[in-house]
């Protein structure tokens, strides 16, 4: 089995059978941030804690990336294999809106307010052959 590693540490809980988004919560004013940061953009303090922000939310806004971005975009895709992807802000339970790639990539499949859930996806192979992974959101199917 290919080893999987986060592309960047600290964005989501890992390893975890049920990963969630990680953020920071200001111990002074209660506002959240993603990725976690040691200072607070709301109250200017620097007393925060890393907290789990869950794995579900609602789509607040969206667009579709139709062409393969230039550098610094870095995946194993080529212009020929590139598949358009959705981009959106997902409003989590705490209210914070987290920017994310979206699995859905057509206007018919995307709508403001739709329920979304987290998934972990491969980005590219690193030098040692490990698979680097990141987060994205996808439409939450009704239970």
């Amino acid at each position, binding site marked *: 089995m290919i080893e999987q590693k986060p592309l960047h540490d600290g964005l989501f809980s890992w390893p975890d059978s049920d990963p969630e988004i990680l953020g920071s919560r200001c111990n002074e004013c209660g506002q959240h941030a993603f990725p976690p940061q040691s200072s607070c953009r709301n109250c200017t303090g620097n007393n925060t804690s890393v907290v789990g922000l869950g794995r579900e939310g609602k789509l607040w806004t*969206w667009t579709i990336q139709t062409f393969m971005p230039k550098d610094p975009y870095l*995946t194993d895709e080529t212009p020929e294999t590139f598949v358009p992807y959705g981009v959106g802000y997902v409003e989590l339970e705490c209210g914070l809106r987290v920017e994310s790639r979206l699995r859905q990539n057509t206007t018919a499949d995307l709508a403001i307010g739709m329920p979304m859930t987290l998934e972990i996806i491969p980005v590219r192979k690193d030098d040692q052959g490990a698979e680097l992974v990141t987060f994205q959101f996808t439409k939450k199917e009704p239970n």
Partner: protein
Amino acid sequence: MDVAIVGLGLHPFGRSPSLSGLEQGAVAARAAMADAGTDFKAMQFAFGGSQDGGNADSMVNLLGLTGLQFTNIWNGCATGGSSLNAAYSAIKSGQYDIGLVTGFDKHPRGAFNPKPSEWGLDDWYGETGLMLTTQFFAMKLQRYMHDYNISRETLVSVAEKAFRNGSITPTAWRQTALSREEIEQAPMVSEPLNKYMFCSPAEGGCALVICRADIAHNYTSKPIYLKTAVVRSRNYGSFEVFAPSQAPFVADSPTVTASRTAFELAGIGPEDVDVAQLQDTEVGAEIMHMAENGFCAHGDQEKWIAEGRTEITGALPVNTDGGCLANGEPVGASGLRQVYEICHQLRGSAGARQVPNSPKVGYTHVYGAPGISGVNILAV
């Protein structure tokens, strides 16, 4: 001390393969000084900026080594606004009598590709395809259309106006008017915005000579008074570009705070403005900025644009030279081009695109990453 603009210079925007960005800036600077009937020896200071065109102060090699104070300004798309703000303060404070403001640029073709590390972000943000300004503009607009019932027809109308105004502006890059059908059928870039709804990075230079109001008539018979020049960054909750997360609510943007302060300082209101330049990085930006700058209520743009109120012959002409959509955006020069255009409108020298009935008060607004805005109010 009141502040006046007495010299206007522009190197046409677009593509100029034989000239560097700096050289285009120097062409604009010499044009502005000639317009004011003066020369570089008379300039006591200069503020200048460029994103990809090199250090502005190296322009002294092309203009002459006179020993003046020359300060480089870099503030993203608000570079021109920040340069003019600095020059305004230099005159207003009494430190200097006359000086030069210049901006220029020369960008590679295609969309900008900013580096995350230069914007306080880690590499994953760019590597996974989130570091695109086009996505931000599209997402801000998508939510705005949802919240305020703005139609796709209105997006098309704004692009149509831009290229029509560009077609009667001799210095514009895009000088061909486009039909609604041509605009509607352009390839989609980032839903809901297609190719003709975005401006493109470009090249060009712009410069202004600015001086104490009490000596302005030594340089021109038609001084334009810079009533106020305000630059603001974002407050918590403003929906902004290059943001991996946004606050749980939407607060006033830096455009709103800069605009409000500018009107307060000038002692006038939006209803007093006769002609405006509003940052139109894409068509939705022009629409949203109409309301953010206080000219109409959110959602009223649909009616305003349908009624032609922002046309050259309308109640509030917006982007009379075709704006960024028709001129492209050489970042360092773009904000100054707005002021250049408004000064021509207030002088009555805007040619085929002249706003009728002698406009008296003009307004310019820039917006740029990662959430800054500059507003100038000008009057004859």
